[in-house]
């Protein structure tokens, strides 16, 4: 009797629940199908087009987009300009792209436009330079503080190799720091990591020069500075802006290096490695821009497509270029300029 009742109950349950389950499964398949049918467009917004450091990210983001079967856009002002970059982000909001990965500063203007994009239903992540005060989904890049610290440690090694005493407090080692703009969180973190590491030494920051994220201006400022301050001991390049020109375009820098100047910096790319090969740079710390391009895209895609929540910080790690691996790096990195 009970068994009969249970059997009857089971049948009823099956009769009631099975269609519901079937309907639910079919619905899920439809949603999946719809999502597959939709063309996903994700835009990368680097700081500018004229900075070749982003070309690795550009290349690998495109390749990843092909793999994912989505549209990739790569848009920025040719020369860095905050207003123009924000305008481009606004145009992406107007065009209702599905997501964007931007390299920005942690300033109110950028925070505002990122938040507006998110309010418009666009998934926003940052790469290279973060805006943590915004509601961006995640940031992919290096630990900039750590990068600064690694660069400082590399500098100390170079000084040791050259038998320069960096602990002798009587004689200071005057240092010039060249950065993009103050307020760019990534750059400021690199400086902070660098300064914390050399705090106990006799390395003293004489000047911090801002090049407004401009390659051309950075070259000009560097040459001017060395003409006026040939006695400077150390230069720390927070980014690789002046490394895009051949050594012949940097005569003062060449002369200063010959005279024993020590230069270290962040960003590894083909032209920077050539300068290092010529002896103008002694130690470089590089970002993995390729990973920022490919992994940044795939992470955002997974979030848009599948709702996969990413970690807030995605560390891409750093690589270093010193005398030991320079030859190998010159073979793996490719020139960006048309010859």
């Amino acid at each position, binding site marked *: 009797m009970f068994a009969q009742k249970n059997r009857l109950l089971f049948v009823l349950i099956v009769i009631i629940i099975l269609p519901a389950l079937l309907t639910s499964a079919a619905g899920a398949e439809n949603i999946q199908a719809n999502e597959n049918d939709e063309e996903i*467009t994700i*835009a990368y917004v680097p700081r500018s*087009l*004229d900075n*070749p450091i982003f*070309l690795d990210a*550009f*290349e*690998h983001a*495109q*390749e990843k987009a*092909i793999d994912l079967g989505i*549209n*990739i*856009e*790569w*848009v*920025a*002002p*040719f*020369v860095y300009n905050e207003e123009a970059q924000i*305008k*481009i982000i*606004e*145009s992406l909001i*107007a*065009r209702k792209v599905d997501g964007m990965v931007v390299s920005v500063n942690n300033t109110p203007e950028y925070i505002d436009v990122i938040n507006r994009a998110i309010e418009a239903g666009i998934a926003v992540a940052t790469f290279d330079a973060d805006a943590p005060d915004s509601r961006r989904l995640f940031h992919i890049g290096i630990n900039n503080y750590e990068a600064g610290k690694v660069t400082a440690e590399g500098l100390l090694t170079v000084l040791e190799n050259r038998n320069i005493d960096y602990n002798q407090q009587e004689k200071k080692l005057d240092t010039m720091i060249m950065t993009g703009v103050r307020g760019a969180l990534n750059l400021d973190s690199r400086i902070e990591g660098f300064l914390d590491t050399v705090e106990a030494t006799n390395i003293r920051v004489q000047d911090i020069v801002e090049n407004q994220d401009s390659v051309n201006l950075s070259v000009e400022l560097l040459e001017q500075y060395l003409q006026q301050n040939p006695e400077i001991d150390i230069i720390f390049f927070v980014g690789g802006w002046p490394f895009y020109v051949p050594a012949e375009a940097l005569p003062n820098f060449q002369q200063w290096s010959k005279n024993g100047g020590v230069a270290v910096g962040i960003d590894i790319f083909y032209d920077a490695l050539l300068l290092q090969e010529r002896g103008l740079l002694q130690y470089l710390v590089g970002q993995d821009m390729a990973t920022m391009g490919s992994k940044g895209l795939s992470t955002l895609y997974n979030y848009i497509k599948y709702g996969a929540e990413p970690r807030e910080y995605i560390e891409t790690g750093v690589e270093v270029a010193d005398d030991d691996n320079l030859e190998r790096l010159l073979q793996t990195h*490719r*020139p*960006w*300029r*048309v010859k």
Partner: protein
Amino acid sequence: MFNNLFKKLFNKIEIHTIRTKLIISFLIIGLLPILLSGLLSFNIYRGAINDRISAYSQEMVNRMERDLEDYISEIETFLSREQDFYINQFIKLTQANDFRNNRKYAFRIWEDFNNLKQMKPGLEDIAITFQDGRRISSYGTYNIDLENFRARMYSDSSGDISFTSPYTNYLQQEVITIVSSYYPEIAEENVLISADIDLDVLANLTDFNLGEKSYFLIADQNGDIIYHPNQELIGERSLLYNAGFPDRKLNLNGEQYILTSTFSYATGWYIISMASADEVEAELNYITDITLYMTLVVLLIIILLTIYLSSSLSRPIQKLQELTHRASENDLSVKIDTSGNDEIAELGQSFNKMIRRINKLMEQNVREQKLLRKLEMESLDNQIKPHFIYNTLDLIIGLLENKDFDRATHMVEALGKFFRLSLSHGKEMVLIRNEIKHVKNYLFIQQFRHGEEYEYIIDVEDHEIMDKHIPKLILQPIVENAIYHGLLPSEKKGLVIVKGYRENKNIYFKIADNGVGIPAAKVEEINKILTGRLKTDDQQKYFGLRNVDQRLKLMYGGSSGLRVESVEGEKTTVIIRIDQRGGN
């Protein structure tokens, strides 16, 4: 003809006064040329202004067409470029998805396109677009809806270049895009090379100041607006389109506009100038106002002048008319106050002179009549003195008693003629012939009465004077004086000569006697009294001479009258001068 027309007009509107006629005439004469010349000048000026505005508008749209075509031509030159190695490589590697090798070409294209953007103001973006909508431009790489993009495109006249209607581009800018096809040698797929032109460039091209309400617009061949100052209208079909944009004047939203257009064959666009008629005609209105105000001022001046002139002309005439009327009603005390030297003043002076003359003549006539009556009475009194009559009648009786009937008959006949001629039927003027006869009768009677103690001779040389008229009783009183004061006191045989002749249009009578004569002092006194140089209170003194003299002077003026010459104890001559030129 005009005279008749004016008469009819005046009669029709019952205008009869000279003043009103003068006012209307002056107004017509004064205003007509002013109104005609004002109207003519205004129309000529209006035509010139309209021509100038049309020419200016046409020049503006032509200049805009040239500027636009120059601008577009430069863009087209860039778009119609020959094979470009970097572009070709980029296309080839993009089609192959070779991103690793392609990134340097992408960088090069970004750099090139941005350099071009810097060189050409208003050039917002330059792009290469693939058939699947992928695009590389000065802003990077992105995707567009190519189908939608193509739907906006239309070709120019050559078919090599296409234009889009205005739309919002990638950067949310209002642009039009110029598009050219590019066929790379190394790839089968052709791509589109395009340039986005900021609509502000068109705004700058149309940045000519026609006025606040005036504006320019640009429309395509279908009349769809490409550029309009009111951006909401961009992309819409122009209401002005009428199988093109023919030049015309039209009403739009209650405003009058002058439409001037030109067609750009390079772009297939119409450039249209909409000049506000109000603003164009503002200058005309100013001229119209000035003309109107000047006409009103001139009209006022003419009216005031007309009233003044017509009054100054008609007032003396009215006064003259009024005084003439009073004069016609026997009021001869009237006198016009005349000033100036014009005809009216002369007419007034003549009127015054005429009235004075009439008064004088009337006074003279009255005085003359009085004198004449008095003389007649005196003459009759003398002539019908009982002594004269009785003596004469006794003589006649004596002749009858002596049966001298012939002489008695002559005496009666002479006496009758004497009295008849003395009365002359009451006429003042008599023929000299009759006056001579009267004197003859008188001398005949007196000669007979005085026993033929003297002779007399009547000698009129110029017989033509016999038919002239003179006041009656001119000669008889003088002859009577000659007999009674000259001959009768004398003891010698007396002679009276009455001579008449004409000299220098004057008629002279000389009555001479060979009597006792008059003392020189007396002659001088008589002549002084006669010429007015000596006054006398005794009205009876030399009454006969003075009577005749005054009557002649009254009748013929001061040059006429009597003059006495005498040689005491020998002769006396009274000369009567009648100046016919001084007669009334």
